[in-house]
């Protein structure tokens, strides 16, 4: 435990060092080339803009977080049961899998304008794009996980008199979790992309909308400030899923041996 703590503090230290170096480099470039602030504002200017605009950024962030979470949760709630259906019946797999792959080949960004036409401005198009874009990795990785059970384990369970439902709940599902979390993590990053895309195309709120209007006014410092908030949000989301993963599958190889 002590060792883990030490490693954690070491990691944090080096993270601060590397980010500090990046900011220093950035400030150096701005100072050296005297870049105009509408092209590349310095770290100080961006910080200042963040301070001036935080009141306005908070509600917009709220809308973005809401669309990301709504699209993502919808993808989980629809995707996981769909994966279960696909692995449990070959017929249903034949019916469901091809259209799923087909929708995946459509660039989701191209669908956003259509959603605006159908559903107007507001939450729905954003949630729909976020949902569509993170749905596929979640379904596919869940399917892969559910399929990866050792046939001998099923045989063993049957020889112990286990009914199919129990084999599914106690063996197949827990065994699928590591792969599922792979999909959930990829999906978490994609959901942010999806919600932003929705906000670019048709929305009057959210960080995507704020980003466009800052660009329109050539307020590059604000643009950078928003970018930082966005990446912080995306990172927080990703790490939240990682924490959940660590809690749910502490036994998996990927979670072991954080010493070293």
């Amino acid at each position, binding site marked *: 435990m002590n060792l883990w703590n030490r490693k954690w503090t070491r990691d944090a230290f080096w993270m601060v060092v590397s980010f500090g170096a990046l900011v220093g480099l950035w400030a150096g470039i701005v100072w050296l080339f005297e870049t105009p602030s509408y092209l590349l504002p310095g770290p100080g200017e961006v910080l200042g803009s963040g301070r001036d605009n935080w009141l306005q950024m908070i509600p917009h962030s709220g809308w973005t977080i809401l669309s990301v979470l709504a699209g993502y949760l919808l993808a989980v709630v629809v995707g996981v049961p769909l994966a279960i259906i696909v692995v449990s019946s070959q017929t249903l797999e034949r019916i469901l899998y091809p259209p799923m792959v087909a929708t995946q080949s459509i660039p989701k960004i191209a669908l956003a304008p259509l959603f605006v036409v159908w559903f107007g401005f507001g939450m729905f198009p954003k949630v729909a794009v976020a949902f569509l874009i993170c749905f596929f990795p979640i379904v596919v990785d869940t399917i892969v996980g559910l399929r990866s059970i050792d046939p001998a384990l099923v*045989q063993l*369970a049957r*020889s*112990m008199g286990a009914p199919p439902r129990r*084999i599914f709940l106690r063996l197949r599902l827990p065994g699928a979790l590591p792969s599922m979390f792979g999909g959930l993590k990829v999906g978490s990053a994609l959901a942010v992309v999806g919600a932003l895309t929705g906000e670019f195309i048709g929305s009057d709120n959210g960080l995507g909308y704020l980003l466009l209007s800052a660009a329109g006014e050539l307020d590059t410092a604000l643009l950078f400030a928003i970018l930082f908030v966005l990446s912080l949000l995306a990172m927080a989301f990703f790490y939240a899923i990682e924490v959940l993963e660590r809690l749910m599958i502490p*036994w998996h190889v990927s979670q*072991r041996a954080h010493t070293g």
Partner: protein
Amino acid sequence: MTPSARAAGSVAIPEARPEDAASFIEIESLDKTFVGQDGEPVVALQGLDLDVRRGEFVTIVGPSGCGKSTLLSLVAGLLETTGGEIRIGGTRIVEPYTDLGFVFQSDLLLDWRTVTGNVLLPCVMRGLDEKAHADRARELLASVGLEGFEDKRPFELSGGMRQRVALCRALLLDPPMLLMDEPFGALDALTREQMQVDLQTVWHRTQKTVLFVTHSISEAVFLSDRVIVMTPRPGAIRAILDVDLERPRDLNVHDTSRFTGIVHEIRLMFQEMGVIHR
């Protein structure tokens, strides 16, 4: 075994009576044909007859693909026969027969359960109370030298230890019979010999009927009362050899002429059948 555990099995078997101790497993003109990927029939087993006495240790050796694993699955009622029949304790097997312990080449331990939790898997799979069997699980683990490892995770154990846990899991509900499909096939040579000795000890203590599959001729001879030599697919019985070496056997029995004689005899059969070439 507790009465409730017995009742939870999907096939009710009558209590053993001394007079039918003669044949515990009866296999009669057994056929098994699979439908292959290309739709062609694959004859795995053909006309197999075999009787196993209660408490007997019988090992099956045969070339790869001759139907050894299929035979064990059929005995456990996990596959349907295409001809003939199997009876255990006089009851015809038509559905999964759960009053047995299965051990495979892969230990199949669950990473998310502790060692004890893995031994208790039969309880979970049958919907029995785990707590009621926890003491038994610990006793079993201690009996194979794994005291102190009860709360460890499987990944903290060596291959040999993991396979011991798998054996404890098979013994948890004290079934009268063990089916073992190349259980030591993935272990190194030294661990393997140790496991053979320890399995013999367990067998002496528990008096189980064991149906054991291996590719190692010497392992078969060391462990068994009888060795069944099978032909290449379609699998049938080529010969049944009695191993009349004294029990308990220690590893030095390998160097006796009786032992090497039987090993030699079996190897000759494989050469004759073209399974191995000189």
